[in-house]
């Protein structure tokens, strides 16, 4: 479904590389976790995949469903089924959650050949999704993320995911900020949504999340590269040993390139 090949990325107009040759392959039905120290480039990878205009790909490619997405605008990628749950969801004062979601749902539905819903049908449709992440209906009429607590924002991201039914979900530290109960609820929701036809990439710092959402693969990103990949046990190892033992591996590998 997704293939990232030797991806090099800089901030638009700057020289220093943030991503220094990332390779990642995600198949339908899989769950991948990406872990790694602060500043290693995890969010950048997710944002670049979603088409953030601040970054420039200087080398490599992102192939989604067999085609490069590099020339696609963020909305076109969303239409194609890519979804990014933000590490720091943006507050959009003046636009209500329900306005945004209906607008989004219908544009995405139109381009994916699903049926568009009128306001009443949408009401029904959205009800199940609220339940899925146990979100209060009041949030629908509030401005997107505006004044939401940290945890509420994260839950709202997953609620949007539930509504939009993406094919490839990039969840950037969705667990950070959620309390213990909320984490279980949200993880549960994600598990219910996940099936054979979609794929999920989780970015997280905590092994705990992976107890709830069990990944097929775990990758470690250090210094703008994926330096090690493994099964879910790798997360346990990291929990125990930290990243130090991989740090040297990263540099050696970096110089070898």
């Amino acid at each position: 479904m997704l293939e990232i090949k030797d991806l090099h990325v800089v901030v638009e107009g700057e020289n220093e590389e943030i991503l220094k040759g990332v390779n990642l392959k995600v198949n339908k039905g899989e769950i991948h976790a990406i872990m790694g120290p602060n500043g290693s480039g995890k969010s950048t990878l997710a944002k670049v995949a979603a088409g953030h205009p601040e970054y420039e790909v200087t080398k490599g490619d992102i192939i989604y469903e067999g085609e490069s997405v590099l020339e696609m605008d963020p909305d076109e990628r969303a239409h194609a089924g890519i979804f990014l749950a933000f590490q720091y969801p943006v507050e959009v004062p003046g636009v209500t959650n329900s306005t945004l979601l209906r607008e989004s749902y219908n544009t995405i539905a139109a381009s994916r050949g699903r049926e568009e819903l009128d306001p009443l049908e949408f009401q029904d449709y959205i009800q199940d999704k609220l339940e899925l992440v146990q979100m209060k209906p009041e949030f629908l009429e509030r401005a997107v993320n505006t004044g939401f607590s940290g945890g509420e924002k994260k839950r709202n991201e997953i609620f949007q995911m539930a509504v939009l039914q993406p094919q490839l979900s990039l969840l950037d530290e969705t667990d950070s900020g959620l309390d213990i109960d909320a984490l279980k609820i949200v993880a549960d929701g994600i598990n219910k949504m996940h099936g054979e036809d979609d794929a999920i990439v989780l970015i997280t710092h905590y092994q705990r999340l992976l107890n709830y959402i069990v990944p097929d693969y775990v990758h470690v990103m250090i210094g703008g590269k994926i330096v090690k990949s493994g099964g879910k046990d790798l997360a346990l190892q990291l929990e125990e040993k930290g990243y130090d033992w991989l740090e040297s591996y990263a540099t050696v590998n970096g110089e070898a390139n």
Partner: protein
Amino acid sequence: MALPSNVEPSVLHNLAKHAPGVESAFMKKIREQSMEALNRSPFPHRKMEDWRFTDLKPITRTEFVSMDEAGIRPAIDVEKYYIPESDRSRLVFINGEYQEKYSSIGGLGKGVTVGNLADHLDDKEVEEYLNKLVNYENDPFTHYNGLMFTDGSYIHLEKGAKAEAPIHVLNLYTDSVKPYVSTPRMLVVAEEESDVTIIEDHIGLSDNKYMTIPVCEIKVKQKAHIHHARIVRDSLEAVHVSRPIAYVEKNSEYHSYTITLGAKLSRNEPKVIQEDEEVDFTLDGLVLIDGEQIADTHSTMDHRFSHAESHQLHKVVVNGKAHSIFNGKIFVRRDAQKIDSFQENRNLLLSLDGLVNTKPQLEIFADDVLCSHGATVGQLDAEEVFYLQSRGMTEEKAKEVLTYAFALETIENIKVNSVHQLLIDEVYRYTKANNVDKVTA
């Protein structure tokens, strides 16, 4: 009745000789005072501090003529601009002249007097307040209005009277062969504990050049409430120079919302003057301009007594080569303690060629005062645009939605449904029409 002018004559001074005659001694007095004042009031220019940023060419480069010489064309589709809520509480003026046949004033309930000023010159309150409240020193526009107006809106509420419907003051400006100058006038006196909502509308019926100089005097007595929406929908070639002044007495409230969509050049100088303690007032504004429009707001909030709450949110969206100017004076006099005053001017600049000048001007002589004020000039937030795009909206749509959301805040306060809806549509039309260019980084 022209007197020799003491200042360099301008278009206003030159047209003064066309002042229509009046019968009553009271009006004659107003004419004389206005003439005298006009003759010592120089026409503004860029060297005056209050006019530094304002390009007056739309006035100085236009040959305005008297109403008689203008070749006025008839008004068309007047009914189109009615609002249903004011079906029986509407005053219509065409180029400043009262229109009895379009007006409808029966639906306001007990204790509310609404009509043409010219028909109420003998009313005690008119004698007491007309041309007495207006206070714009050395301002030739104000004095020109005083010299020229015959008709005008008169709204009076007796003690405890609550207007049963919003009053729609519909000022229409017609097409003409040559540019003319119109001088709408308004006097509102709300006695104790009365309550009224006023929609003051200015609409250009065509795309011609004209100048309108509305002067509005408002007295809000103890515990009275006034909600005043002012909508500038003049022709995009027009000049709109307005002077609304409100005096607020003890425990009264005055809330004003000025929405500027039209006019090539608008200069709005609202003033609120506190006359006693415990008042609450608002001077909000929303400006949506494009092309070569210039919208200038110079406001004054004068806190003279303790315990006042005042609020001014002035929001501006600038596209094309448009130019917004904001100067918000806040006075807090020495004995005015416990003042809670909020002022913010937020500007959204959608184009590279747009221009914004903003200046809060606080003069505070008391010490127990909470004054927050700020001004921001910005473009659409790139993160917000990306966020919406990542949810499937096109860049264009995302910018449209964000601009719309930015503008909506002021409009939310307008209580009359159809006007609220009309303004939503106007905002929507504006954001749509301005295919909000790629200006975010």
